[in-house]
Structures are given as structure tokens and as C-alpha cells.
């Protein structure tokens, strides 16, 4: 809602002078103020003048010489406009006046005649777009005739204050100046002036008949016949208010309808009676029926749409838009002003389907006031009489088959305390509700009568809201209840521990969008049958590049890494924890939580020397650390070629034999596709297995006996994973093994082609005794023979 303070003042006298205070008042009522500003005149020194005489200029035929009475003197002013004669009341910029920022009016010579000022047009005064002639005030501002010589700004109501408020969807009654005034009157406890709608009853009787068949869709159809209008521009005061209201002035008939709508909230529509005929019907459309609407679009209708007809064919889509065939146009003289009450869901369904949301439809879908329909038509008729020479019929048409009456709610006073936590007695409560124009009888429960303009008030709790709003939230004392506790669920704590560990390892968390595109999966070079290829499409994506729900976190991270590196900052170590979306068997997609990280670029050299770039062991190190942090003891790594990774530098990650993810260096082509150079490391894994509650860990007392520590090195096939050796050694060493560490990997020289040497440091310790040399020798023999039998490995050196 956009409007000015002067319009408010027409209906209610509020004890507020500061513009900001009124903004605060609107807010306290629940009407959010988007903007307010003081409207100052864009001029100074402009007065009301009366043209006494107009004569030709001796040496110029495009201008005329006027004698203008400006109160204390009569000025000769040269004027180039021709839209007036002697007798015109006009705005005059006298010498010294300033228009706009800095256009100062002075006496000046125009072809030998002195011009003592300027008669002004709308555009020169910043009061509109009209530039073709000067403003003539006689009919637009009749009061100006009695104000010759006075400040012209006052005539047009400046200065004023502009407000734009957002009315919440539950308050259709406040989508009008009068409706907001009603709320202000309640707040300040001042009377709301009557609406002032009156129609001169002296015209010819009504000759249009209305038959409503679609009663559910059109519970009430009212209207007023107006004859003898002249279609033309509206007076300035009306156009000015429409402009402040954000509505473009069109012609007096359209403008009157819009003006009345901003003023009182009820949409109306004018039919050209000459083209409409004298019968109006309201019925459901026939499937396939068409109508050409005011915007010259042909619209196909369904039986769920309600139409206004000329008795036979549709002439308007009810509550949504009028038809072109009966549109008021230049030359129209006789109109019928429709003001109906349309069923909100019907209007919404139709306007949504036709993608045709008009100001009228958006109001009807929220709910207009069925009790106001005749007044709505009357107000337009009244305006047309005033500004377009219209003669209204003496009585309105009113077909009211729905007969929607005010309803009542039984309100127990205990509801106030139950919901708000404060006690208000019957008198206080009644008073609050009556200020809001609810009817109230009884003591407890109160019987509250709700006016038809308040479709949002149906239940006691709706009245609680009204009571709270007017009583003021400040009047409700604060209290802080405590919940039963429960704290962070286990899973949440594990997620935090994981994040903390990864951050502690040097990674920066990013939050990427949950959308990817086919191109991202192509960049990852995933095979066509890869699970990540079966992403769920978005019906209405923001753009083509983000048309699929992400099935992997890697593209987002890789793009972020590339962006980060492109800014010439050091290495990118990024991670993300979030959901991916995969088709599943349930109603909803599978939405597992994942962790992914990438390392790209090269750490900057330090004074101790150049740092190594990243490689796959950076990923495995993080994985091992995470398993430590989470006390996961059955984790393993299985070397496999896994896209999108380097086929020889990637692995699956397992917990208890279940694959939970993969890591590796990205395939160089994939890295390049994301604009990354060098070895880029990535990892992505499902978090479900990691956040399982494995119960508290159990204490193992450290042995007090000394260990036996020795090294063993084996020559094995180059393809034998170190982890296989470790598994065999663990099994062979049994309970005595306390620690095992791979400390050397060696190929070449003395080692045959296709083989490698792996050296282990082994620490044995018993819990109950000091180990002897014989104990150690036995374990060494056992390890050596197991490695030999199971992996074909050969011990280097002696047993």
C-alpha cells in the first residue's frame, strides 16, 4: 500500500505530527513500513494567480502576453501555452521563485516585452508528466479561486508524507487508506470519519438487470448505472494521488475505479453499456469457451472459472479481468460499474492457471468485504459524477444470493491468559475489541461479532491476536521457561568432532550450493552408469548449469578450490559436510550426509625450503586421523581404480568391510577440467558409519614390562599392498604385538624388477612378564613364515 499522509487526514484525526511516529504506529499495528519520506514541493515562490487578460505579442506569434493577478500586484507575463484564456486560475512563478534544484525565475525580455515571471506546467513544478500546457486550476482545484496570491504548494497539499506499508496477507481489510485509518483510529482511540459515499439520486433509473447463476463463486454482485460521462483525463488532484499510490493515471473512468480501490479497498469494473447491452449474467464458464481480455490476450476458459456475461457470452473473467469487447473507450458515455464479491479460492485458481494476477484478483483472492460491494460501486459513481460529468442511476443493483452476514465467536476470557500469559477482564477485553469494530456482548464468555471485512478472524485464537496487537506486546511480561534438557544428540556431537578434527588438520569449511549440472559430472568424467549420474532433476532450476540435485560434493569443492587459487592465495584445503540427493525406494530421495575434502595447489615455501605439493597420502592421513578421533578400529583402505581419481592412486575406504567412500589423487584430466594444475587430492565419504555410537572406549592398562623392539624387512611383489603385510604380521604376532610401523619402502638396485622391499619396526610387549629373546625369536619366525606362505614374501637378512 502506497499513500500519503494527507489522504489519512481525510478520514481520521490522529495526534501525530512527526512522520516517523506514524511509521512506528503502523509497525506496532503489524503493518510493516517499507519506506516513508517527506514530500516537499519541488519549487519555492510559486503563487496562485488569476489571468485577467490575454493578448498577442507584437513580435512573436508562438507566445502571448498575459496580465496575471498574483494578489498584491498584476504582472505582465509572456506565456507560450495556449490551453487557457482570461479567467484561468494558474500557478505563477514570480521573479525570485526557484523551480527544481536551481532554476531561478527572473524578469526577462522576450522580443521587446518584459515577462515578470512564468506560468507553470505540471512537469515544471514536478507535479506530473503533463508538459503540453500550463496547469489550469479552475476545475481541478476549485478552492484556488479564493486563494489568489497565496502559496501554490498548499493548494496541491504539499508538503506531505509518503508511506509504503506492507499489509500482511491475513489483513485484506487494510489494503486501503480507509482500512488503515480504521486501525489507526483503534490505536489512538479517535473516531473514524464516515466514508462520505453519497450518490445524487436525481438521475434516470437503472435499466440493467443482473442474474447470478454461479452463487458459490459469486455470493454478491452489485453495481451502479452511470450515464452521460465524458471520457477524458482526470483532474490533477486525483492523478497526483494515484501517482503517489503507484498507479499510472489512464482516463477518468479507469482512474476513478483505481482511486476508489486505494481509498476503500474494493475492486470495481466499468462496462460500456452501449456494447454490453442491458443484461448481465454470472455463470461458470463452459470448458473451451474463450474471451479476449483487456490486455488483448485470448484466454481459454474452464468450467472452474466464473464469468460475467452479457446474458450469452463472457464479457469478463469474474474478479480477474474485464473483456476487451465491453471495455470503456474514448467516446463511451454510458457505463455500468460492477462491484462484486467473488469467492477467494475460485479467483486464485483461475488467476494462477491463467498466470493473470491483476490488482483485482490479488485482492479478491485474499478476500474482499462482501458488505461493501454496493458502496464500492457507489463511490465510483460518485467520482464519475464529480470528474466525468456522469449521472448515476438513483438506486444500485444488488444481487446478494450468498448473503454473507457477520459471524460470532464465543470468547472465554481464559484464552487471553492461556495464550498470552496476562489476565484482562471483561471490560478491558470488550473495549479493545470494540475499538477494532468488533461487536461484543456478554461477560464471560464474550460473544464477539466479526465484521465481514475480517475473514481472518474465525476462532478465539484469532481474537487473541487482535487483543495482543492492540494491547501491545510490550504489556506482556517476559518469562523464560526451561526445557527438559537433552542437549546435543550423539550424532550432532560426532559431526562436530569430525568438523573440529578436519579444521584442526588445516582445512577451511565451505558451504556450496546443493545443485550441480550434467557438465559437472562430465568434468568428473564419470562413466554413464555411475551412481552419481542418476541425479534428481529440478523442475524449475535457477539456470541450466544447476539443474540437478548434487550427487557428489566434489564438483562444488573443486570449483571453490579453483576460484580460491585463481585469486593467487596459497594452497586450497577445503572441505564440506552436507547432503547429497540420490534416488531411493521411499517417498523422499535418499539424502545421506557426506564429508568431502580437496587439497590443491602448493603450500608456499618457508624459509626452511620449498614445501612438497599434495599427494594421495595427505588424504589417507586425514582418513587415519578421523578414524582415531572417532575410535573406529575396523577401518581399512582398499586400493582400487575409482573414478574420478587417478586409477593408480585411489582407494576405497571401508569400515567393518563396508565401503563408505573413496579417496585419491584426481585423474589429471579431471583436475584439468576444473582448471586445476598439479596433483589434486580429493576424498568423499558417507558419514552415517562414522557417526554411529560405538559406546564408550574401555581402558587398557599399559604393561609395566619392557618391550622387545626389532625391525624386519620383506621383499614382496610390487603390487602387494602394505596393508596386507600389516594384516599378516598382526595375525602372526598375536597379542604380543604392541605397535607396528612401516619405516621404509624401497625398490631398485638390489631389489628385482617388479618387487619391493617393505621394512617394519615391530614392538612386542607382554602384559604379565618380561619377554625373553626366545619369545621374540618365536614371533619373528612366525611372522616370516606367514609372510612367506600367504604373500610369497621373502625376509631380508637373517631371522
Amino acid at each position, binding site marked *: 500500500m502506497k499513500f500519503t499522509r494527507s489522504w489519512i487526514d481525510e478520514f481520521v484525526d490522529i495526534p501525530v505530527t512527526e512522520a516517523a511516529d506514524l511509521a512506528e504506529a503502523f509497525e*506496532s*499495528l*503489524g503493518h*510493516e513500513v517499507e519506506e516513508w519520506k517527506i514530500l516537499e514541493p519541488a519549487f519555492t515562490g510559486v503563487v496562485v494567480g488569476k489571468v485577467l487578460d490575454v493578448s498577442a505579442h507584437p513580435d512573436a506569434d508562438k507566445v502571448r502576453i498575459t496580465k496575471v493577478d498574483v494578489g498584491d500586484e498584476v504582472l505582465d507575463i509572456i506565456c507560450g501555452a495556449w490551453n487557457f484564456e482570461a479567467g484561468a486560475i494558474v500557478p505563477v512563478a514570480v521573479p525570485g521563485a526557484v523551480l527544481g534544484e536551481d532554476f531561478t525565475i527572473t524578469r526577462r525580455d522576450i522580443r521587446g516585452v518584459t515577462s515578470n515571471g512564468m506560468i507553470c506546467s505540471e512537469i515544471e513544478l514536478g507535479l506530473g508528466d503533463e508538459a503540453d500546457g500550463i496547469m489550469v486550476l479552475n476545475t481541478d482545484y476549485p478552492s484556488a479561486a479564493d486563494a489568489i496570491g497565496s502559496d501554490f504548494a498548499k493548494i496541491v497539499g504539499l508538503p506531505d508524507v509518503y508511506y509504503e506499508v506492507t499489509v*500482511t496477507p491475513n*489483513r485484506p481489510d487494510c489494503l486501503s487508506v480507509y482500512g488503515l485509518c480504521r486501525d489507526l483510529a483503534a490505536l489512538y482511540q479517535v473516531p473514524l470519519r464516515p466514508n462520505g459515499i453519497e450518490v445524487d439520486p436525481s438521475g434516470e433509473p437503472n435499466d440493467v438487470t443482473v442474474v447470478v447463476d454461479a452463487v458459490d463463486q459469486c455470493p454478491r454482485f452489485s453495481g451502479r448505472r452511470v450515464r452521460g460521462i465524458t471520457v477524458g483525463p482526470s483532474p490533477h488532484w486525483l492523478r497526483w494521488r494515484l501517482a503517489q499510490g503507484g498507479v499510472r493515471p489512464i482516463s477518468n473512468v479507469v482512474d476513478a475505479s483505481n482511486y476508489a480501490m486505494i481509498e476503500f479497498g474494493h475492486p470495481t469494473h466499468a462496462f460500456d453499456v452501449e456494447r454490453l447491452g442491458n443484461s448481465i449474467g454470472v455463470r461458470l464458464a463452459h470448458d473451451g469457451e474463450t474471451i479476449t481480455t483487456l490486455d488483448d490476450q485470448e484466454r481459454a476458459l474452464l468450467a472452474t472459472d466464473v464469468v460475467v456475461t452479457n446474458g450469452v457470452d463472457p464479457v469478463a473473467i469474474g474478479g480477474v479481468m474485464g473483456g476487451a469487447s465491453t471495455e470503456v473507450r474514448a467516446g463511451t458515455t454510458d457505463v455500468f460499474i460492477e462491484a462484486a464479491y467473488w469467492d477467494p479460492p475460485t479467483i486464485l485458481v483461475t488467476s494462477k492457471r491463467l498466470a493473470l494476477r491483476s490488482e483485482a484478483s490479488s485482492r479478491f483472492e485474499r478476500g474482499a468485504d462482501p458488505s461493501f460491494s454496493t458502496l464500492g460501486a457507489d463511490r465510483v459513481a460518485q467520482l464519475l459524477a464529480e470528474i466525468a460529468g456522469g449521472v448515476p442511476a438513483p438506486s444500485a443493483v444488488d444481487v446478494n444470493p450468498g448473503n454473507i452476514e457477520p459471524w460470532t465467536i464465543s470468547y472465554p476470557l481464559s484464552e487471553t491468559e492461556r*495464550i*498470552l*500469559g496476562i489476565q484482562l477482564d471483561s471490560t478491558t477485553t470488550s473495549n479493545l475489541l470494540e475499538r477494532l469494530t468488533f461487536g461484543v456482548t456478554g461477560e464471560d464468555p464474550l460473544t464477539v461479532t466479526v465484521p465481514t471485512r475480517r475473514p481472518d478472524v474465525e476462532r478465539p*485464537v484469532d481474537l*487473541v*491476536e487482535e487483543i*495482543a*496487537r492492540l494491547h501491545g*506486546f510490550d504489556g*506482556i511480561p*517476559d*518469562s*523464560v*521457561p*526451561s*526445557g*527438559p534438557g*537433552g542437549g*546435543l544428540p550423539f550424532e*550432532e556431537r560426532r559431526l562436530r568432532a569430525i*568438523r573440529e578434527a*578436519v*579444521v584442526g*588438520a*588445516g582445512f*577451511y*569449511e*565451505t*558451504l556450496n*550450493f*546443493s*545443485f550441480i549440472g550434467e557438465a559437472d559430472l562430465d568434468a568428473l568424467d564419470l562413466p554413464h552408469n555411475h551412481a552419481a549420474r542418476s541425479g*534428481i*532433476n529440478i*523442475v*524449475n532450476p*535457477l539456470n541450466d548449469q544447476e539443474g540437478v*540435485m548434487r550427487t557428489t560434493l566434489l564438483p562444488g569443492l573443486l570449483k*571453490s578450490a579453483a576460484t*580460491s587459487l585463481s*585469486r593467487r*592465495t596459497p594452497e*586450497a*584445503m*577445503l572441505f564440506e559436510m*552436507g*547432503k547429497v540427493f540420490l*534416488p531411493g525406494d521411499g*517417498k*523422499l*530421495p535418499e*539424502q545421506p550426509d557426506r564429508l568431502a575434502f580437496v587439497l590443491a595447489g602448493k603450500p608456499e615455501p*618457508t624459509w*626452511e625450503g620449498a614445501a612438497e605439493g599434495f599427494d594421495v597420502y595427505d588424504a589417507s592421513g586425514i582418513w587415519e586421523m578421523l578414524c582415531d578421533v572417532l575410535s573406529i578400529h575396523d577401518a581399512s583402505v582398499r586400493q582400487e581404480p575409482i573414478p574420478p581419481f587417478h586409477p593408480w592412486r585411489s582407494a576405497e575406504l571401508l569400515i567393518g568391510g563396508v565401503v563408505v567412500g573413496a579417496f585419491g589423487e584426481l585423474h589429471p584430466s579431471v583436475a584439468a577440467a576444473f582448471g586445476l594444475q598439479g596433483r589434486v587430492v580429493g576424498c568423499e565419504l558417507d558419514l552415517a558409519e562414522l557417526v554411529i555410537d560405538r559406546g564408550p572406549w574401555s581402558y587398557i592398562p599399559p604393561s609395566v614390562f619392557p618391550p622387545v623392539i626389532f625391525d624386519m624387512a620383506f621383499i614382496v611383489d610390487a603390487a602387494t599392498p602394505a596393508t596386507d603385510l600389516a594384516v599378516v604380521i598382526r595375525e602372526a604376532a598375536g597379542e604380543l604385538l604392541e605397535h607396528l610401523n612401516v619405516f621404509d619402502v624401497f625398490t631398485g638396485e638390489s631389489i628385482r624388477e617388479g618387487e619391493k622391499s617393505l621394512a617394519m619396526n615391530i614392538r612386542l610387549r607382554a602384559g604379565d612378564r618380561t619377554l625373553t629373546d626366545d619369545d621374540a625369536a618365536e614371533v619373528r619366525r612366525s611372522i616370516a613364515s606367514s609372510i612367506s606362505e600367504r604373500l610369497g614374501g621373502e625376509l631380508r637378512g637373517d631371522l
Partner: protein
Amino acid sequence: MTTDNSDSVKELRILLAAAPERVARASSVAEIDAIEADLVGRASPIANARKGLGAITDADDRRATGKAINDIAVEIKDLVDERRGAVASDEQNARLVGDAVDVTLPGRRPRRGTHHVIRKTMDEIIDIFVGLGYTVATGPEAETEFYNFTALNIPETHPSRLESDTIYLDYGDKDEEILLRTHTSPMQARYMEEHDPPTYVVVPGKVFRSDAVDATHSPVFHQLEGLAVDEGITFGDLKGTLASFAKQYFGSSTKVKFIPHYFPFTEPSAEMHAYTNGQWIELLGCGMVDPEVFKHVGYDPEKFTGFAFGMGMERMAMVRHGITDLRALLDPDRRVLEQYR
């Protein structure tokens, strides 16, 4: 007759008299060690003198001579030890000088990254509510139209259901639309279906709207939803709880005000504004849970009342950290991420 004057002791006294000068001349620990060996070592005159004690037959004489030898040995030993201490200290000092480094060079520091500021914000706010006795729940981001709208009393015809506002997924048999939740509120219904009151829970999470990215909008953002349902919960409880939150999060002097608003799933509804950094800022939406929502989840609206609130994490972070353009929160630039300490 005394044995003090025996030859060996005399010799030793001469030795002792010469010792200070010899010891003082020594300039390294090694030299001192050699002098020590020479004076009191195995082959020293002192050792020899001790060996000769056995030959003294008179017990008293032997004892007196032994004591004299010992005293001389102790004196020499003290001299040597004192000098060795001084020389060792000098030698160590000389080594330390050679060890000198510039300790102002950058240290070898363990890497440490950052949590995203949105996550930090979320965690911090969660912790505030955990302190008030709430627990935490999370829910699906791809959600049914029922939970996102219908269960929250949002009419079938409400414009927020339009594709211009809500992102829909091409999924399932179309009996029911699947969409990306537009708020964390669906978890209100899901949580209440699964748990009986008293219900005190916060729900953090990602939410989605059909908005292009600009300074104040993003199609993906984060909310935290709160819900407290119990017997006797009132609007005063809502006000007190949220005011307490604002003071804990923005500082103890933070002022708040509540102004009426509208949400389909609360009645009455309000917005909380907070006065921070010299201006009033709209912080969050809240209200008393609408009885219709209780009916959807099987809570008795006659018996229970409750309040709900929802706040944007981006907004909270932006207000507190002076971020004026939401796009900063989407930036993976290291110079931005490093600030999220």
C-alpha cells in the same frame, strides 16, 4: 711424636700448595680432568700415600695420617670441582653463542583451518538453546509438499507454493510433490509426530527458495527453527526466551521489540527486532503455534500451547560481523575463509 710430619704427608702438603696455581691455569674441562687424575687419581701421590697407610703399625698414627691424607684429597678435589664448574659453564656459554638463531623467523606451525561462519553461528545459537534445555533435531532437505506447507496450515492456494518461490524436484510418482524445503518449519510437524510434549527443540538446516543470488538473497541459505510446546506456554515465554537469546548472542545490553506479523502456522505472530550497532534490525519471525498445526500432529490444542520461531543464519552472521553483502558468505576466497575464526 706425631705422624703429621711423616714424609709422605709433607709431600702431599707441597702438592696441595702447588695445586691452586695448576688448577687455575687449566682452561678446559679436559685439562681439569687430567690434573684431577694427576693429583688425586689412581696413580697420584695421594693414592700412593693411602697405599702406604697399611705400613703404619700404630693405629692412632695410622688414623691420623689417613685423616691428613683425606683432608688434603678433599681440599684438592674441591679446588678441582670448583674450577671445573667454572670452566664447564664457560664452555657451555661458548657453545650457546654458536647456537644463536633468529627466533623471530616464522614458526613451524601446525595448519589450522576454519569452520564456516554460518556453521559457527549455528553452533553458537544451538548451544544457547541447549543451555535453556532444548535438544537438537535435523530433517530432510528434500521434503514433501505436505510437511513443507499443508501441515503448517499454509493453504493449497498460497502463493509461496508457486514455482516462482519454491524449488520442486522431478521425483516420485507425483501423488505428492517433492520440493526443497523453503524453511526448517517442516521439522516442527515431523518432530511433534514422533515426540510427545513437553517438546523443546531447535532445528538447524539448509533451506531453499527460487531466488537468484544478490546482495540479500540466495537460493540456498540456512535457518534455525525453534519450538517449545508444553502445558502453560505463553506469549510471555516466547518473548522472554527470545529476548534472552538476543542478549546472549548479541550482548547483554541488546534491546528487542516485538511487532505484530503474520505467519500461517502461528497465531498470534510477531517479528522480533533488535537494537544493535545503532539501529533496529528485523531479526526473526515467531509466534504461538496455531491450533491447526497441533491438530495435524495429534497434539491436543486445548491442553498444550507452544511457541515457534525461525531465524536466518545468514542474517544473524551478517548483523554480528558487519557483512553487508550476502555473497561474501558464498565466497571460497582464502582471504574470506581465514576471517572465520
